[in-house]
């Protein structure tokens, strides 16, 4: 049986919510005074995590998926010892994260996207990575050797003397990964690895995670908004909604866990709001509409336990409304379809 490397048990976390400061006029030097005044006023409490529990096995890739505000980043921060949970127990490679955060951080590497990554735009890639390597215990000389290895792996060697501003989005994200690769630690926490990337860049990053990190036997926990990404990368997936894990398992288990019936899909022209309202009134589990070609063409996805009956009823509605049906399909729903239904609150 594989060893459990990450243990998260009954973790709760809430934040104070501060009054936001929106200056209507330019306040100049007085800005700090009003900003402080507003920021020190609590408006309430946000319950980000409400009793989250799971374990991750050695070498496993574990995805946390959920909509904005589900608590994904808070959870990653708590596991990474960046944020103290209100209560609960978190263990990484046998170390209690709450009691010994600095010791735990020697086992963890947090990789994130966007500005928070803390890269300095006036330093070169090498200089940025060198500073980070020193934080993980390498001497500057050792760091330079290690950085050359990593930049080779991530195909960034020819950009080593350039500033991060010169990189494409995909290269910047690879730079984030490069920083992560420097520290040789057993657990990687990756926050939204492909956010802001074009499809090609996103695929490159996913390939690197799957190929390089999996090969090295590293345990990975990553967050994402995209079910297809979770399905492609992860051994197991946890769906997080409003601070609670509402489903956990491998992709196949998740598909069978939710009895949502079949997916009936229509492509049609001239789909207006009143048509959608009439379809929603039918006995269905969930409905999603995607418009294409400036709204002229619509794809209607319907999850239903009575596919034939739904098919007949929807065809009647569309024909009576003088819509043009381009195609019709009945099939098993993908995990993405099920996920959308869960997040939409239509599946328990």
């Amino acid at each position, binding site marked *: 049986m594989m060893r459990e490397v990450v243990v998260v048990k009954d973790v709760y976390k809430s934040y104070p919510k*501060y009054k936001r400061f929106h200056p209507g006029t330019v306040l100049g030097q007085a800005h*700090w005074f009003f900003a402080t005044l507003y920021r020190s006023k609590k408006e309430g409490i946000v319950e980000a995590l409400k009793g989250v529990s799971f374990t991750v096995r050695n070498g496993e890739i574990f995805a946390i998926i959920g909509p904005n505000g589900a608590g994904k980043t808070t959870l990653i*921060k708590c596991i990474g010892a960046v944020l103290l949970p209100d209560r609960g127990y978190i263990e990484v490679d046998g170390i209690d994260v709450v009691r010994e955060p600095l010791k735990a951080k020697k086992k963890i590497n947090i990789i994130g996207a966007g500005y928070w990554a803390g890269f300095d735009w006036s330093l070169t890639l090498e200089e940025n990575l060198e500073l*980070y390597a020193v934080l993980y215990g390498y001497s500057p000389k050792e760091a330079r050797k290690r950085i050359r290895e990593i930049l080779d792996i991530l195909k960034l060697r020819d950009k080593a003397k350039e500033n991060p501003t010169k990189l494409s989005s995909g290269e910047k994200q690879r730079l984030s990964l490069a920083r992560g690769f420097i520290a040789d630690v057993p657990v990687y926490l990756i926050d939204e690895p492909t956010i802001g990337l074009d499809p090609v860049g996103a695929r490159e990053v996913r390939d690197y995670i799957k190929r390089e990190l999996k090969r090295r036997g590293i345990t990975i926990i990553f967050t994402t908004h995209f079910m297809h990404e979770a399905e492609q990368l992860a051994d197991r997936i946890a769906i997080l909604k409003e601070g609670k894990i509402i489903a956990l398992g491998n992709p196949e288990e998740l598909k069978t866990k939710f009895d949502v019936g079949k997916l009936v899909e229509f492509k049609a022209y001239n789909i207006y709001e009143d048509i959608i309202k009439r379809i929603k009134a039918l006995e269905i589990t969930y409905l999603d509409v995607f418009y294409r070609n400036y709204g002229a063409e619509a794809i209607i996805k319907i999850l239903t336990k009575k596919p034939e009956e739904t098919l007949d009823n929807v065809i009647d509605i569309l024909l009576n409304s003088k819509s043009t049906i381009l195609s019709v399909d009945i099939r098993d729903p993908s995990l993405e379809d099920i996920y959308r239904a869960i997040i939409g609150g239509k599946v328990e």
Partner: protein
Amino acid sequence: MVKLSEYELKRGGLKFVLLIAIETLKAELTKQFFLMANFIISLVDLIIGTLAYFYLAIFIGEAMNRYITAYGMSYAEYLLIGILGNIIGGFFIHSLYEAISIGYWSSETDLYITSPIGLKGMLLGYVLLGLFWRCITIFVLVVSALMIGVPLHYQNLLQVLEVLLVGLLPFIGLGLISASTFTLINSKSGSPISWLIEILQRIFSGYYFPIQLLPPYIRLISLGLPHTYFFEALRLSVAKGYWIHQTPHLLYPLIIQSIILIPTGIILFKYSIIKAERTGDLSRWT
């Protein structure tokens, strides 16, 4: 491949924090000199500002001399000591807040928070950066004063050193309190403590002119400021060679203020760090 575990035992404690601080400082200086034109413009501004101050001091010196005869120095020197004292005292009051603020707004706190070393190395690095810039300012001031021909007393260095050792203690406490406001009251756009002290000390501490010029009831505010005693002790040590222990009217208030401000500062700063760990207030990663 180099394993982290090989270095865990060798590296740790103060030596490692110092190494991180030096790396942070190195990276920061590389950044600062990245835009060399900015640096040169700032330097020119500093030199011109300094020269303007000194010429102004020489110009109004005649009128001011009768108020400062007790110190046995020219008004230009009186002003220079005030400015130097303010730079050194300001370093202790503002540098920790500045260090947190630079790290936070550049998102670099996230880099350090997620690493095993934590924030210590970063804070020390930025404090050293503050020290570096203040040393440059002090150098420009002194060289400018010498070039203009401001007469300087520099024979009582030991006495000055004693004043600095004792007189700066309350400033350390104020610095800790100022830095704690960053997370305690979320004053991320500027420290209210620094602002308040800066405002008060300009008028009430004897920075630019002796406090005897102020109406007696306003001088009560001066008595509450460590700057008042510090500047006075500094001037007396420079010009007259007084040791601070020979001037108990200056020594005792500074010691009492230190006893109050340093423990208060330590408690508030520790609490601000605990609060930041709970709320994530030092992180811009959302």
